[in-house]
Protein backbone atom coordinates (compact mmCIF):
# COMPACT_ATOMS: atom_id res chain seq x y z
CA UNK A 1 0.00 0.00 0.00
CA UNK A 2 1.10 3.54 -0.59
CA UNK A 3 -0.20 6.98 0.24
CA UNK A 4 -1.41 8.92 -2.78
CA UNK A 5 -2.12 12.63 -2.72
CA UNK A 6 -3.99 14.10 -5.64
CA UNK A 7 -6.60 16.73 -6.36
CA UNK A 8 -10.02 15.39 -7.34
CA UNK A 9 -12.64 17.87 -8.53
CA UNK A 10 -10.71 20.64 -6.80
CA UNK A 11 -10.37 18.91 -3.44
CA UNK A 12 -7.04 17.52 -2.16
CA UNK A 13 -7.37 13.83 -1.35
CA UNK A 14 -4.90 11.61 0.45
CA UNK A 15 -5.74 7.93 0.29
CA UNK A 16 -4.09 4.55 0.61
CA UNK A 17 -3.99 2.42 -2.52
CA UNK A 18 -2.36 -0.82 -3.57
CA UNK A 19 0.24 -0.64 -6.35
CA UNK A 20 -1.95 -2.70 -8.68
CA UNK A 21 -5.12 -0.61 -8.25
CA UNK A 22 -6.36 1.54 -11.11
CA UNK A 23 -7.47 5.14 -10.86
CA UNK A 24 -10.94 3.93 -11.90
CA UNK A 25 -11.15 1.56 -8.94
CA UNK A 26 -10.04 4.10 -6.34
CA UNK A 27 -12.42 6.75 -7.72
CA UNK A 28 -15.37 4.37 -7.50
CA UNK A 29 -14.54 2.28 -4.46
CA UNK A 30 -12.53 4.57 -2.20
CA UNK A 31 -13.89 8.00 -3.08
CA UNK A 32 -17.38 6.70 -4.02
CA UNK A 33 -17.38 8.78 -7.19
CA UNK A 34 -19.48 6.22 -9.04
CA UNK A 35 -20.38 8.55 -11.91
CA UNK A 36 -17.29 7.25 -13.68
CA UNK A 37 -18.33 3.87 -15.13
CA UNK A 38 -16.47 0.62 -15.66
CA UNK A 39 -17.45 -0.92 -18.99
CA UNK A 40 -14.67 -2.97 -20.55
CA UNK A 41 -11.81 -2.23 -18.11
CA UNK A 42 -9.33 -2.29 -21.01
CA UNK A 43 -9.49 1.01 -22.86
CA UNK A 44 -12.06 0.12 -25.50
CA UNK A 45 -15.34 1.74 -24.39
CA UNK A 46 -14.58 5.18 -22.92
CA UNK A 47 -17.14 4.86 -20.08
CA UNK A 48 -14.36 5.48 -17.54
CA UNK A 49 -13.10 8.72 -19.15
CA UNK A 50 -11.84 11.37 -16.71
CA UNK A 51 -9.63 14.42 -17.19
CA UNK A 52 -6.09 13.86 -15.91
CA UNK A 53 -4.21 17.17 -15.80
CA UNK A 54 -6.96 18.48 -18.14
CA UNK A 55 -6.50 15.70 -20.74
CA UNK A 56 -9.12 12.96 -21.24
CA UNK A 57 -7.82 9.46 -20.46
CA UNK A 58 -9.30 6.02 -19.77
CA UNK A 59 -9.07 5.78 -15.97
CA UNK A 60 -9.04 1.96 -16.29
CA UNK A 61 -5.62 2.28 -17.96
CA UNK A 62 -4.13 4.55 -15.28
CA UNK A 63 -2.60 3.22 -12.08
CA UNK A 64 -3.55 4.99 -8.88
CA UNK A 65 0.16 5.27 -8.12
CA UNK A 66 0.68 7.23 -11.35
CA UNK A 67 -1.64 10.09 -10.32
CA UNK A 68 0.25 11.09 -7.18
CA UNK A 69 0.53 14.89 -7.40
CA UNK A 70 -1.89 15.14 -10.35
CA UNK A 71 -5.25 16.79 -10.87
CA UNK A 72 -8.29 14.67 -11.79
CA UNK A 73 -11.74 15.86 -12.84
CA UNK A 74 -14.65 13.42 -12.95
CA UNK A 75 -18.24 13.88 -14.04
CA UNK A 76 -19.08 14.87 -10.46
CA UNK A 77 -16.69 17.80 -10.87
CA UNK A 78 -18.71 19.37 -13.69
CA UNK A 79 -22.14 19.58 -12.11
CA UNK A 80 -23.38 20.47 -8.65
CA UNK A 81 -26.37 19.19 -6.69
CA UNK A 82 -28.77 21.89 -7.87
CA UNK A 83 -27.76 22.53 -11.41
CA UNK A 84 -26.61 20.48 -14.40
CA UNK A 85 -23.50 21.48 -16.27
CA UNK A 86 -24.55 23.03 -19.63
CA UNK A 87 -23.15 20.01 -21.49
CA UNK A 88 -25.20 17.63 -19.33
CA UNK A 89 -28.26 19.81 -19.95
CA UNK A 90 -27.70 19.64 -23.72
CA UNK A 91 -27.60 15.82 -23.50
CA UNK A 92 -30.89 15.86 -21.58
CA UNK A 93 -32.55 18.35 -23.93
CA UNK A 94 -31.52 16.46 -27.08
CA UNK A 95 -32.58 13.04 -25.82
CA UNK A 96 -28.96 11.84 -26.05
CA UNK A 97 -29.32 9.72 -22.91
CA UNK A 98 -31.03 6.34 -22.94
CA UNK A 99 -29.64 3.88 -20.40
CA UNK A 100 -27.05 6.52 -19.49
CA UNK A 101 -24.10 4.21 -18.97
CA UNK A 102 -21.95 5.87 -21.63
CA UNK A 103 -23.11 9.38 -20.76
CA UNK A 104 -20.51 10.41 -18.14
CA UNK A 105 -17.71 9.47 -20.56
CA UNK A 106 -19.45 11.23 -23.45
CA UNK A 107 -19.92 14.39 -21.38
CA UNK A 108 -16.26 14.41 -20.27
CA UNK A 109 -15.16 14.03 -23.90
CA UNK A 110 -17.49 16.82 -25.01
CA UNK A 111 -15.97 19.02 -22.33
CA UNK A 112 -12.43 18.24 -23.57
CA UNK A 113 -13.42 18.73 -27.22
CA UNK A 114 -15.07 22.12 -26.70
CA UNK A 115 -12.08 23.38 -24.71
CA UNK A 116 -9.84 22.92 -27.77
CA UNK A 117 -12.39 23.24 -30.60
CA UNK A 118 -15.27 25.53 -29.56
CA UNK A 119 -17.26 25.04 -32.77
CA UNK A 120 -16.58 21.50 -34.05
CA UNK A 121 -17.97 20.05 -37.27
CA UNK A 122 -19.88 16.77 -37.17
CA UNK A 123 -16.79 14.99 -38.48
CA UNK A 124 -14.60 16.51 -35.77
CA UNK A 125 -17.12 15.43 -33.13
CA UNK A 126 -17.28 11.87 -34.44
CA UNK A 127 -13.48 11.60 -34.68
CA UNK A 128 -12.85 13.02 -31.22
CA UNK A 129 -15.44 10.74 -29.61
CA UNK A 130 -14.61 7.54 -31.48
CA UNK A 131 -13.27 5.96 -28.29
CA UNK A 132 -16.67 6.24 -26.60
CA UNK A 133 -19.12 3.46 -27.32
CA UNK A 134 -22.88 3.77 -26.90
CA UNK A 135 -25.06 0.68 -27.15
CA UNK A 136 -28.37 2.56 -27.11
CA UNK A 137 -28.61 5.80 -29.04
CA UNK A 138 -27.02 5.12 -32.42
CA UNK A 139 -24.94 8.29 -31.80
CA UNK A 140 -27.16 10.69 -33.82
CA UNK A 141 -28.61 12.36 -30.71
CA UNK A 142 -25.20 12.44 -29.07
CA UNK A 143 -23.72 14.37 -32.00
CA UNK A 144 -26.70 16.75 -31.80
CA UNK A 145 -26.15 17.22 -28.08
CA UNK A 146 -22.50 18.12 -28.63
CA UNK A 147 -23.48 20.59 -31.36
CA UNK A 148 -26.14 22.09 -29.12
CA UNK A 149 -23.74 22.39 -26.19
CA UNK A 150 -21.20 24.04 -28.49
CA UNK A 151 -23.72 26.54 -29.88
CA UNK A 152 -24.96 27.49 -26.41
CA UNK A 153 -21.40 28.26 -25.32
CA UNK A 154 -20.69 30.54 -28.28
CA UNK A 155 -21.09 34.27 -27.59
CA UNK A 156 -23.93 34.57 -30.13
CA UNK A 157 -25.81 31.78 -28.29
CA UNK A 158 -28.54 29.70 -29.94
CA UNK A 159 -28.38 25.98 -30.57
CA UNK A 160 -31.57 24.05 -29.96
CA UNK A 161 -32.03 20.40 -30.83
CA UNK A 162 -34.45 19.19 -33.48
Amino acid at each position, binding site marked *: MRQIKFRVNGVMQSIEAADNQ*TLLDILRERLHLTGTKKGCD*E*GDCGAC*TVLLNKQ*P*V*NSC*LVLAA*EVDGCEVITIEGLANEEKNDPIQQAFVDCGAVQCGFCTPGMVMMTHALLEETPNPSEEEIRNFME*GNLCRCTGYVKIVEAVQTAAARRLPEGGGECD
Partner: protein
Amino acid sequence: MNSFRYQKAGNISEALKWSKESQAYYLAGGTDLLGKIKTERIKPSVLIDLKKIPGLRGISFYDDRAEIGPLTTIREIEISPQVKERLPILSSASGKLGSVQVRNKATIGGNICNAAPSAETVPALLCLDTVAEIVGPTGVRQIPLDYFFIGPGQTILQNGEILRKLIVKVPPTTSRGIYHKLSVRRAMDIAFVGVAVLLEVVAGKIAHARIGLGAVAPVPMRVPQAENLLAGNFLSKELITDAAYITAQSCQPISDIRASADYRRLMVKSLIEKALWQISTTIELPGGEVK
Protein backbone atom coordinates in the same frame (compact mmCIF):
# COMPACT_ATOMS: atom_id res chain seq x y z
CA MET B 1 -5.13 -7.56 -11.55
CA ASN B 2 -2.30 -9.69 -10.21
CA SER B 3 -0.24 -7.88 -7.64
CA PHE B 4 3.02 -6.16 -8.50
CA ARG B 5 5.09 -3.35 -7.05
CA TYR B 6 5.24 0.09 -8.66
CA GLN B 7 8.48 2.08 -8.57
CA LYS B 8 9.09 5.50 -10.06
CA ALA B 9 12.61 5.79 -11.45
CA GLY B 10 14.24 9.20 -11.02
CA ASN B 11 17.04 8.59 -13.51
CA ILE B 12 18.29 6.06 -16.06
CA SER B 13 20.81 4.33 -13.79
CA GLU B 14 18.15 3.70 -11.13
CA ALA B 15 15.86 2.16 -13.76
CA LEU B 16 18.68 -0.01 -15.13
CA LYS B 17 19.54 -1.22 -11.63
CA TRP B 18 15.95 -2.12 -10.73
CA SER B 19 15.42 -3.88 -14.07
CA LYS B 20 17.74 -6.72 -12.94
CA GLU B 21 14.91 -8.14 -10.83
CA SER B 22 13.20 -11.09 -12.52
CA GLN B 23 9.90 -10.14 -14.21
CA ALA B 24 10.62 -6.42 -14.00
CA TYR B 25 8.94 -4.36 -16.75
CA TYR B 26 9.36 -0.74 -17.74
CA LEU B 27 6.15 1.28 -17.67
CA ALA B 28 5.56 4.12 -20.13
CA GLY B 29 1.87 4.90 -20.86
CA GLY B 30 0.81 1.41 -19.82
CA THR B 31 -1.83 1.10 -22.56
CA ASP B 32 -0.28 -2.15 -23.80
CA LEU B 33 1.13 -3.28 -20.48
CA LEU B 34 -2.00 -2.95 -18.30
CA GLY B 35 -4.08 -4.90 -20.82
CA LYS B 36 -1.51 -7.70 -20.79
CA ILE B 37 -1.42 -7.75 -16.98
CA LYS B 38 -5.22 -7.78 -16.65
CA THR B 39 -5.51 -10.70 -19.06
CA GLU B 40 -2.58 -12.42 -17.32
CA ARG B 41 -0.45 -12.64 -20.44
CA ILE B 42 2.40 -11.30 -18.30
CA LYS B 43 2.95 -11.41 -14.51
CA PRO B 44 5.33 -8.61 -13.57
CA SER B 45 6.99 -8.51 -10.16
CA VAL B 46 7.62 -4.78 -10.49
CA LEU B 47 6.67 -1.99 -12.91
CA ILE B 48 9.42 0.60 -13.25
CA ASP B 49 7.80 3.88 -14.29
CA LEU B 50 10.02 5.81 -16.74
CA LYS B 51 7.80 8.91 -16.93
CA LYS B 52 9.63 10.96 -14.29
CA ILE B 53 13.10 10.45 -15.75
CA PRO B 54 14.20 13.88 -17.01
CA GLY B 55 14.97 14.31 -20.70
CA LEU B 56 12.94 11.41 -22.10
CA ARG B 57 9.96 13.44 -23.27
CA GLY B 58 9.55 16.10 -25.94
CA ILE B 59 10.36 16.88 -29.57
CA SER B 60 13.25 19.05 -30.79
CA PHE B 61 13.85 20.06 -34.37
CA TYR B 62 17.28 20.71 -35.91
CA ASP B 63 18.12 21.48 -39.56
CA ASP B 64 17.62 18.08 -41.11
CA ARG B 65 16.58 15.93 -38.15
CA ALA B 66 14.22 15.80 -35.22
CA GLU B 67 14.85 14.15 -31.89
CA ILE B 68 11.84 12.62 -30.20
CA GLY B 69 11.88 11.45 -26.60
CA PRO B 70 10.34 7.96 -26.29
CA LEU B 71 8.05 9.11 -23.46
CA THR B 72 6.38 11.69 -25.72
CA THR B 73 2.70 10.82 -26.02
CA ILE B 74 1.16 9.87 -29.34
CA ARG B 75 -1.30 12.75 -28.96
CA GLU B 76 1.53 15.27 -28.45
CA ILE B 77 3.09 14.05 -31.70
CA GLU B 78 -0.26 14.07 -33.53
CA ILE B 79 -1.11 17.68 -32.67
CA SER B 80 2.35 19.30 -32.58
CA PRO B 81 2.27 22.10 -35.22
CA GLN B 82 5.95 21.48 -36.02
CA VAL B 83 5.39 17.74 -36.55
CA LYS B 84 2.36 18.52 -38.73
CA GLU B 85 4.47 20.83 -40.86
CA ARG B 86 7.78 18.98 -41.06
CA LEU B 87 6.87 15.31 -40.43
CA PRO B 88 3.25 15.18 -41.68
CA ILE B 89 3.39 11.42 -42.30
CA LEU B 90 4.19 10.81 -38.62
CA SER B 91 1.49 13.18 -37.41
CA SER B 92 -1.06 11.46 -39.64
CA ALA B 93 -0.07 7.94 -38.53
CA SER B 94 -0.18 9.01 -34.87
CA GLY B 95 -3.72 10.33 -35.30
CA LYS B 96 -4.85 6.87 -36.41
CA LEU B 97 -3.80 5.06 -33.22
CA GLY B 98 -6.61 4.10 -30.83
CA SER B 99 -8.76 6.93 -29.45
CA VAL B 100 -7.99 10.41 -28.11
CA GLN B 101 -8.00 8.95 -24.59
CA VAL B 102 -5.55 6.18 -25.55
CA ARG B 103 -3.32 8.63 -27.45
CA ASN B 104 -3.13 10.91 -24.40
CA LYS B 105 -1.54 8.06 -22.44
CA ALA B 106 0.22 5.96 -25.10
CA THR B 107 3.81 6.88 -25.90
CA ILE B 108 5.82 6.51 -29.10
CA GLY B 109 8.51 4.54 -27.25
CA GLY B 110 5.86 2.12 -25.97
CA ASN B 111 4.46 1.69 -29.46
CA ILE B 112 7.93 0.75 -30.73
CA CYS B 113 9.09 -1.40 -27.78
CA ASN B 114 5.82 -3.33 -27.64
CA ALA B 115 6.85 -4.43 -31.14
CA ALA B 116 3.44 -5.38 -32.54
CA PRO B 117 3.76 -6.11 -36.27
CA SER B 118 0.91 -3.59 -36.66
CA ALA B 119 2.54 -0.82 -34.54
CA GLU B 120 0.97 2.32 -35.97
CA THR B 121 3.88 4.73 -35.92
CA VAL B 122 6.55 2.35 -37.21
CA PRO B 123 5.98 2.28 -41.03
CA ALA B 124 6.19 6.10 -41.04
CA LEU B 125 9.27 6.06 -38.78
CA LEU B 126 10.93 3.55 -41.13
CA CYS B 127 10.30 5.91 -44.06
CA LEU B 128 11.95 8.69 -42.04
CA ASP B 129 15.20 6.67 -41.61
CA THR B 130 14.73 6.68 -37.84
CA VAL B 131 17.64 5.71 -35.60
CA ALA B 132 16.96 4.34 -32.11
CA GLU B 133 19.34 5.39 -29.36
CA ILE B 134 19.49 2.76 -26.67
CA VAL B 135 21.08 2.92 -23.23
CA GLY B 136 22.00 -0.15 -21.20
CA PRO B 137 24.31 -1.35 -18.46
CA THR B 138 27.30 -1.29 -20.82
CA GLY B 139 26.67 2.07 -22.46
CA VAL B 140 24.85 3.71 -25.34
CA ARG B 141 24.32 2.39 -28.87
CA GLN B 142 22.50 3.64 -31.95
CA ILE B 143 20.63 1.23 -34.21
CA PRO B 144 18.60 2.00 -37.35
CA LEU B 145 14.96 1.17 -36.57
CA ASP B 146 15.06 -1.31 -39.52
CA TYR B 147 17.10 -3.65 -37.29
CA PHE B 148 15.22 -3.06 -34.03
CA PHE B 149 12.53 -5.73 -34.43
CA ILE B 150 13.20 -9.46 -34.46
CA GLY B 151 9.71 -10.95 -34.25
CA PRO B 152 6.18 -10.26 -33.00
CA GLY B 153 6.67 -8.65 -29.57
CA GLN B 154 10.45 -9.12 -29.78
CA THR B 155 13.14 -6.49 -30.11
CA ILE B 156 16.90 -6.33 -29.88
CA LEU B 157 16.66 -4.74 -26.41
CA GLN B 158 18.47 -6.88 -23.85
CA ASN B 159 19.67 -6.73 -20.23
CA GLY B 160 17.15 -4.07 -19.30
CA GLU B 161 18.15 -1.70 -22.11
CA ILE B 162 16.02 1.45 -22.44
CA LEU B 163 15.06 3.21 -25.66
CA ARG B 164 16.09 6.77 -24.81
CA LYS B 165 15.87 8.76 -28.03
CA LEU B 166 14.56 8.59 -31.60
CA ILE B 167 16.52 10.43 -34.24
CA VAL B 168 14.30 11.09 -37.22
CA LYS B 169 15.38 12.49 -40.59
CA VAL B 170 13.31 15.53 -41.54
CA PRO B 171 12.65 15.18 -45.27
CA PRO B 172 13.10 18.20 -47.55
CA THR B 173 10.01 20.27 -48.31
CA THR B 174 9.86 18.71 -51.78
CA SER B 175 8.89 15.38 -50.17
CA ARG B 176 5.44 13.88 -50.05
CA GLY B 177 4.38 11.22 -47.59
CA ILE B 178 1.19 9.23 -47.06
CA TYR B 179 0.15 6.65 -44.48
CA HIS B 180 -2.85 4.40 -45.10
CA LYS B 181 -4.32 2.15 -42.43
CA LEU B 182 -6.86 -0.59 -42.99
CA SER B 183 -8.72 -1.99 -40.01
CA VAL B 184 -11.92 -3.96 -39.59
CA ARG B 185 -13.49 -1.08 -37.68
CA ARG B 186 -12.20 2.34 -38.70
CA ALA B 187 -11.74 3.55 -35.13
CA MET B 188 -10.21 1.80 -32.14
CA ASP B 189 -8.87 -1.22 -34.00
CA ILE B 190 -5.34 -2.14 -34.93
CA ALA B 191 -4.31 -2.17 -38.58
CA PHE B 192 -4.44 -5.35 -40.61
CA VAL B 193 -2.51 -3.48 -43.26
CA GLY B 194 -0.45 -0.32 -42.73
CA VAL B 195 1.28 1.30 -45.68
CA ALA B 196 3.59 4.33 -45.56
CA VAL B 197 5.11 5.89 -48.67
CA LEU B 198 7.55 8.79 -48.76
CA LEU B 199 8.93 10.25 -52.00
CA GLU B 200 11.29 13.13 -52.53
CA VAL B 201 10.62 14.59 -55.93
CA VAL B 202 13.02 16.96 -57.71
CA ALA B 203 11.90 18.46 -61.04
CA GLY B 204 9.31 15.73 -61.35
CA LYS B 205 11.85 12.96 -60.83
CA ILE B 206 11.89 10.72 -57.73
CA ALA B 207 15.17 11.46 -55.97
CA HIS B 208 14.55 9.30 -52.94
CA ALA B 209 11.87 6.72 -52.09
CA ARG B 210 10.85 4.92 -48.94
CA ILE B 211 8.14 2.34 -48.37
CA GLY B 212 7.26 1.04 -44.90
CA LEU B 213 4.71 -1.70 -44.17
CA GLY B 214 2.94 -2.78 -41.00
CA ALA B 215 0.90 -5.88 -40.09
CA VAL B 216 1.93 -7.86 -43.18
CA ALA B 217 5.07 -9.60 -41.86
CA PRO B 218 6.35 -10.77 -38.45
CA VAL B 219 7.90 -7.31 -38.02
CA PRO B 220 7.25 -3.90 -39.60
CA MET B 221 9.38 -3.77 -42.76
CA ARG B 222 10.82 -1.63 -45.51
CA VAL B 223 10.74 -2.65 -49.16
CA PRO B 224 14.14 -1.79 -50.69
CA GLN B 225 13.41 -3.47 -54.05
CA ALA B 226 10.43 -1.20 -54.67
CA GLU B 227 12.28 1.84 -53.30
CA ASN B 228 15.16 1.19 -55.73
CA LEU B 229 12.76 0.75 -58.61
CA LEU B 230 11.16 4.13 -57.88
CA ALA B 231 14.33 6.13 -57.21
CA GLY B 232 15.76 7.96 -60.22
CA ASN B 233 12.58 7.70 -62.28
CA PHE B 234 9.59 9.79 -63.22
CA LEU B 235 6.27 8.59 -61.80
CA SER B 236 4.38 6.84 -64.56
CA LYS B 237 1.42 4.51 -64.62
CA GLU B 238 3.70 1.58 -65.36
CA LEU B 239 6.12 2.46 -62.56
CA ILE B 240 3.26 2.73 -60.06
CA THR B 241 1.91 -0.69 -61.06
CA ASP B 242 5.36 -2.30 -60.90
CA ALA B 243 6.26 -0.79 -57.53
CA ALA B 244 2.94 -1.92 -56.05
CA TYR B 245 3.39 -5.41 -57.48
CA ILE B 246 6.92 -5.78 -56.11
CA THR B 247 5.83 -4.51 -52.70
CA ALA B 248 2.95 -7.00 -52.55
CA GLN B 249 5.36 -9.80 -53.52
CA SER B 250 7.88 -8.94 -50.82
CA CYS B 251 5.56 -8.88 -47.81
CA GLN B 252 4.83 -12.04 -45.81
CA PRO B 253 1.32 -11.70 -44.41
CA ILE B 254 -0.48 -14.28 -42.28
CA SER B 255 -4.18 -15.13 -42.03
CA ASP B 256 -5.86 -14.34 -38.72
CA ILE B 257 -9.22 -13.19 -37.34
CA ARG B 258 -8.86 -9.78 -38.98
CA ALA B 259 -7.97 -10.75 -42.56
CA SER B 260 -6.58 -13.52 -44.74
CA ALA B 261 -3.04 -13.46 -46.09
CA ASP B 262 -4.30 -13.16 -49.68
CA TYR B 263 -6.54 -10.22 -48.86
CA ARG B 264 -3.72 -8.46 -47.02
CA ARG B 265 -1.39 -8.89 -50.01
CA LEU B 266 -4.04 -7.58 -52.38
CA MET B 267 -4.61 -4.57 -50.15
CA VAL B 268 -0.89 -3.83 -49.96
CA LYS B 269 -0.84 -3.66 -53.74
CA SER B 270 -3.86 -1.40 -54.04
CA LEU B 271 -2.86 0.88 -51.15
CA ILE B 272 0.63 1.39 -52.61
CA GLU B 273 -0.97 2.24 -55.96
CA LYS B 274 -3.39 4.58 -54.25
CA ALA B 275 -0.65 6.33 -52.28
CA LEU B 276 1.55 6.78 -55.36
CA TRP B 277 -1.36 8.13 -57.42
CA GLN B 278 -2.25 10.52 -54.60
CA ILE B 279 1.34 11.73 -54.44
CA SER B 280 1.45 12.13 -58.23
CA THR B 281 -1.40 14.63 -58.06
CA THR B 282 0.50 16.84 -55.63
CA ILE B 283 3.70 17.20 -57.65
CA GLU B 284 4.46 18.99 -60.86
CA LEU B 285 5.58 16.68 -63.62
CA PRO B 286 7.35 17.95 -66.75
CA GLY B 287 4.88 16.26 -69.09
CA GLY B 288 1.76 17.19 -67.09
CA GLU B 289 -0.09 14.66 -64.98
CA VAL B 290 0.69 10.93 -64.86
CA LYS B 291 -1.10 9.12 -67.68
